[in-house]
Every structure is written in structure tokens, then in C-alpha cells.
């Protein structure tokens, strides 16, 4: 039983092929040379990859996606790091209640959050769509930043900030000069994880886009409804390549897999 059984190994190989195979398919289709989507392609070229980089709608929505991604990740860290610190260092009465309240955005399906923000913020209070998009993504990312930074803080000895305070530092100085440099890796991992989550997000953004404001994934889904050329395959190829590089680098530097 301790050695690898052949049947189980076969199942592992099949499962991995099922999970990773689609990337190969998208890669090949993205480099096709023909007019329409065909698999396997008859000829290969850079044509569609070059094409998608020039489409204005994709450029514009990419800028929005990057903006919302960085903005909401930053906001979720600014709100989430103090929470993680408070929960790990102070005996807060009702801490379980606080924890539950802050994980709610993970429990409620994103499409509901998006629709609720559309009704409440955009239609009722006339808040701009981009601001609602930012707010919705921030709420969604908050549980991630709290969790990742909390697990990073859990590995850090409590007495190092107490030592700093005893030695005359204020609480604030102790945090910025002693605690923060020690949880750098955790904060950076939270950043990458949160950014990817926001960048790939569809359900929350679904109702919070309109004429002129759209994120890249929403734009891709809209494009698919009308065109059947290899553009989306080419764009997906770029996204897959970008993610592989990002994940490989962060895994090497930060060991992100232990936070997923």
C-alpha cells in the first residue's frame, strides 16, 4: 500500500492531462494562421496575437482591469493588514464574530454583490461605475488579504513587537519597523494572489460595466458572442503565458503555493 499503485498513478496522469491539456489547446489555437477558429490549425503564425494587441476595445479594457486590479488590491491590503494584526495580537472580544463578518464576501456569490452594488451605489446614489467596480473588488479581496497576512503573522513571534515597545518604541513604530519588515513576504504573496483574483474576476464585474467602462474578461465574453475568429484564443494564450510567468516567479521568490 505504501508504494505507488499503478492504477492510482494512471488516474493522476489522466487528471493532470485533463487539467493542463486545455492550455495546450488554447496555445495552439492562439497561434493559428487561418481566418476562422479551427483545431488543430492548418498553419501557424503570430498574426492573431499581434491583432489582439491592436484592438482598441481590448486595450481600453486592459487598462481598466489593471487600474481596478491594483486599486482594489491596494485598498484590500490597507484595510486587511490592520485587521490581521489586531486579530493576531489583541484579545478582541467577539473576534470570531469579526472574522465571520469579514469572510462574508467569500460566501456571497459575486454576481449578487455586483447586482447589489449596481442597485445601491450606481442607481441610488449615482456613484460612478468605475468606483463601484473598485469597491466591489475590494470587498471580494478583503478575505484573501486578511487570511494570507494572518497566516504570515502567525509564524512571527508575538514577543518581538512587545520587545520593541519595551525598548521605547511606540506601537506604530513597532509595527512599521519591526513587524512589517518581517511579514514582507506574506504581504507580497497577498498582493499577487489578490491581484490575480481581481484580474480574472467576472461575476462581480458583470453588472458594473457599461458603455466605455469594461474589464478585460467582460470584454472577452462580449467579443465571443459576436465573433468566431481566433482572437480570444490568442488573448487567452497571452493570459496563460503571463500567469505562468507570474506564478513561477512568485513561487520561486515567495513560495506562494502555501497560501493558496
Amino acid at each position, binding site marked *: 500500500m505504501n508504494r505507488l*499503485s499503478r492504477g492510482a498513478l494512471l488516474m493522476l496522469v489522466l487528471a493532470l492531462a485533463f487539467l493542463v491539456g486545455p*492550455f495546450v489547446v488554447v496555445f495552439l489555437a492562439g497561434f493559428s494562421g487561418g481566418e476562422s477558429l479551427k483545431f488543430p490549425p492548418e498553419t501557424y503564425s503570430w498574426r492573431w496575437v499581434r491583432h489582439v494587441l491592436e484592438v482598441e476595445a481590448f486595450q481600453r479594457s486592459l487598462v481598466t482591469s489593471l487600474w481596478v486590479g491594483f486599486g482594489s488590491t491596494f485598498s484590500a491590503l490597507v484595510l486587511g493588514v490592520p485587521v490581521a494584526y489586531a486579530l493576531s495580537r489583541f484579545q478582541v472580544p467577539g473576534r470570531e464574530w469579526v472574522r465571520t463578518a*469579514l469572510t462574508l464576501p467569500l460566501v456571497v456569490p459575486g454576481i449578487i454583490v455586483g447586482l447589489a452594488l449596481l*442597485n445601491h451605489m450606481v442607481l441610488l446614489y449615482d456613484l460612478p461605475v468605475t468606483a463601484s467596480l473598485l469597491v466591489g473588488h475590494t470587498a471580494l479581496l478583503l478575505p484573501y488579504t486578511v487570511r494570507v497576512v494572518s497566516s504570515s503573522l502567525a509564524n512571527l513571534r508575538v514577543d518581538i513587537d512587545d520587545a520593541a515597545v519595551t525598548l521605547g518604541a511606540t506601537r506604530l513604530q513597532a509595527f512599521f519597523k519591526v513587524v512589517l519588515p518581517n511579514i514582507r513576504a506574506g504581504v507580497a504573496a497577498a498582493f499577487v494572489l489578490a491581484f490575480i483574483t481581481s484580474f*480574472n474576476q467576472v461575476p462581480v464585474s458583470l453588472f458594473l460595466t457599461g458603455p466605455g467602462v469594461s474589464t478585460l474578461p467582460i470584454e472577452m465574453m462580449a467579443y465571443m458572442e459576436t465573433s468566431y475568429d481566433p482572437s480570444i484564443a490568442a488573448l487567452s494564450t497571452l493570459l496563460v503565458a503571463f500567469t505562468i510567468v507570474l*506564478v513561477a516567479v512568485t513561487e520561486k521568490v515567495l513560495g506562494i503555493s502555501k497560501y493558496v
Partner: protein
Amino acid sequence: MHRNRIAWGLLAPALAFVGVFFLLPVLALLAGAFHVDGVPGIGRFVQFFADPLHQQVYWRTLRLAGLATLVSALVCYPAAMALVRVPPPWRGLLTGLVILPLMVSPIARTYSWIVLLGRNGVVNSTLVGAGVIEQPVQMLFTEAAVFVGLLQLMMPLMLVSLVSALENLPSDVLAAAHTLGASRWQTFTRVVLPLTQEGLIIGGTLVFTGCVTAYITPAMLGGPKVLMLETLLYQKVNVAGDLPAASVIAVLLLLTTIAVNQGLRRVAR
């Protein structure tokens, strides 16, 4: 007392944010499902389920989610048991291959099925070439396509949960079972399964709720013909402009995921 004040000062901004920009809007939306013309009641739910299409969509959502959960458990148990026994240098690479799909845009991952299952896709052209079928058959926009897409999207969650449960399983337990004469099947059902059931419950919850609340997969591979709860919700808002119906679906989505979550937790106990 002083420390308490600092702690609440640190928690307040996040709690206020979640309260104002998340809880309040969501509660307002959900509340819309529980009154008709200002009179509180569950009339909207009765009205919603009176439509056979809505019943069909709800059952399809539960059916696909249940099936995807079952199949991913059946595939991932042996796969995870093999993965934890792979020697170190390979193991890191394989774990990376399991985690990577979780980071990649679900649109990119789902698009491969459009490439494979389309009229000019490799499945159709192979079948036509081999003479099995005379003309390309409709594979996209079927329930089977949605199922395959969901399975591929959600399976890593089950695999990751089972791997971390199996990693915590002491290996001498298996050796002991073997020495005491248990067969492989007995070892699995009487030793491995009870000791790793928590991983199975977590993985199952993630896969099931992931499928119930899926939007991209049914939108891309199912279209208007194979609606699931979220694509129906989208249609209610953007095509029919029927916001109360959307509120009803939102409540159903939430209740279903919470019920499954609590139900599976109770099974574990």
C-alpha cells in the same frame, strides 16, 4: 482597556467598509425577494417556481453541481493518493501543475472547450473522419459541454483539498493496516476514508458551491439553451429587466450554498 481601543481602531475601517459597501447593498437586494407590492410574504418564490423553465434551471444547477462533485471525488482520491507518494523533485512540479490552473483566467480555460467541441473542432472532425458520424453534431451548448467545463474548472479544488488531507495521514497507519491483513479496498474504506473525510468534505463543498455559483462556464458553453441559476439571473436583469425575479434567484443561490455547506459539515460530525 487601552489595548482594546487600539484593536477596535484597527478593525473599524474594514468593518465599516464591509458594512456600508457590502452588507447593506446585499441585504437590500435580498429583501426585495420577500415582499410583493409592499406586502411581506413568500409570494415571489411561489410565483418563480410556478414557471417550469425556472424549475428546470434550478434542478439542472443542482444536478450538474452534484455530478461534478461526485466525479471529481472519484477521480481525485486515487490521483491524490498517487501524488503524495511521488518522489520529491517530481512532486513539486506536479503540485505546481495542479495549482496553476487555479490562477489562470477561467475564460482562457473554458475557451479550450469551444475550440475542441465546436462544429470544426477536433472531436467532430475526428468522428467525421473515422466515419462514426456523417455530419458534425452539436456538442457546444449542451448540458454535457457545461458539465465537462465545470469539472475541469473545479477539479483542482478537490485535488488540493484531498492532497492536504492525505499529507497529514501518518504512513505507518497504512503499514499497520497492511500488516494486520487488510486488503487495499478495506484499507481505503476503513482507514484512509475516515481519516481524510475532512478534506473530502472541504473539497466537496468548494466544488459544489463553485458549480452552483458558476457564471462563465454556463454562459460560454451552455448559452441561452442550457441556463443555470447565474445565467438565468443575468438574463432576468439584462434581458427581462425583472429585478424582483433576480432577487429571488439571489436568495436561492445563497440558501442553496449555505444549506450544502451546513449539510456536509453535519455529515462529517
